[in-house]
């Protein structure tokens, strides 16, 4: 009984361990040049699929995402820099196409927010600690 449980668990682990992550990239899209292909994959992961907007084009199965993957690869083969390809797509789709918002005036608050929230929390914590210390000192004085 116990042995069969263990072997069942092992079988399950083995089954899961060798499952490759599901890829949206079709074999016929992959470039022969491994370096270019790696750049294509990296770029694809930075680009938002405009159909299913929470996915990047690298793992989206939408036909439009495939068209964009092909476009990225075509431009890489033509010798474009990563920067040029991103600029090309931003010119057509706006900053929305970038999964990581660029740092600029209209995103300044977004990028500054974590630091601002931390500073706010630090000020409150400072007040709180100062008051605790005062209370301690008062208590000590009374003794």
């Amino acid at each position: 009984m116990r042995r069969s449980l263990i072997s069942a668990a092992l079988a399950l682990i083995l089954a899961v361990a060798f499952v490759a992550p599901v890829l949206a990239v079709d074999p016929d899209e992959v470039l022969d040049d491994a370096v270019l292909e790696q750049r294509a994959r990296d770029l694809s992961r930075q680009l938002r699929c405009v159909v299913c907007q929470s996915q990047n084009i690298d793992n989206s199965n939408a036909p439009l995402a495939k068209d964009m993957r092909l476009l990225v690869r075509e431009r890489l083969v033509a010798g474009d820099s990563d920067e040029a390809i991103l600029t090309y797509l931003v010119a057509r789709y706006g900053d929305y196409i970038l999964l990581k918002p660029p740092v600029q005036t209209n995103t300044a608050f977004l990028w500054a927010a974590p630091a601002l929230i931390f500073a706010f929390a630090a000020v409150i914590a400072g007040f709180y600690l100062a008051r605790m210390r005062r209370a301690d000192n008062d208590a000590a004085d009374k003794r």
Partner: protein
Amino acid sequence: MSRMVFLAPLALFVVLGIYFAVGLTRDPSYMPSALIDKPLPVFDLAAIEGVELGFATRDLDGEVALINFFGSWCISCIVEHPVLMDIAAREDVIIAGIDWKDEPGAGARWLEQRGNPYTLIGDDPTGRTAIDFGITGAPETFIIDRKGRIRYRFAGPITPLIWKRDLKPLVEQLRQEGDDAP
């Protein structure tokens, strides 16, 4: 001072509440077009099967026109199609179509069955021109002015209400602009 501290979470709650209430009224999936007031992308598309002429950027020189992306595979386009037919029949405006990612002949068959509202049609089997327009789905419609600039983008099927309320007034306004200019 100490009473203020107790009010802080309430104040924070109010601020966040207003912020999220406004957020609820917005559509987070809405993507504004990056091409507004930009010149029309350069393209020269072949004709679809059964139609003689293709569609290129310069064909619309000096015209106020609608450019409509459609496909025989696109369900919303079936809903939109009668509206386009109606506009083509009753209004004095050029509607140009771009057949987006269709199988050869599929677009032509689709128009044969339902009627053809387009003055010009281009075939975009690779979807590359669609990407140049920043397309996010079909149907999608652009309005261009006489100087060949994109002035409006509407994503989704045009309904009679949207035509009457948003698109038609803009088309008329763009015509005026063109007439005033030398």
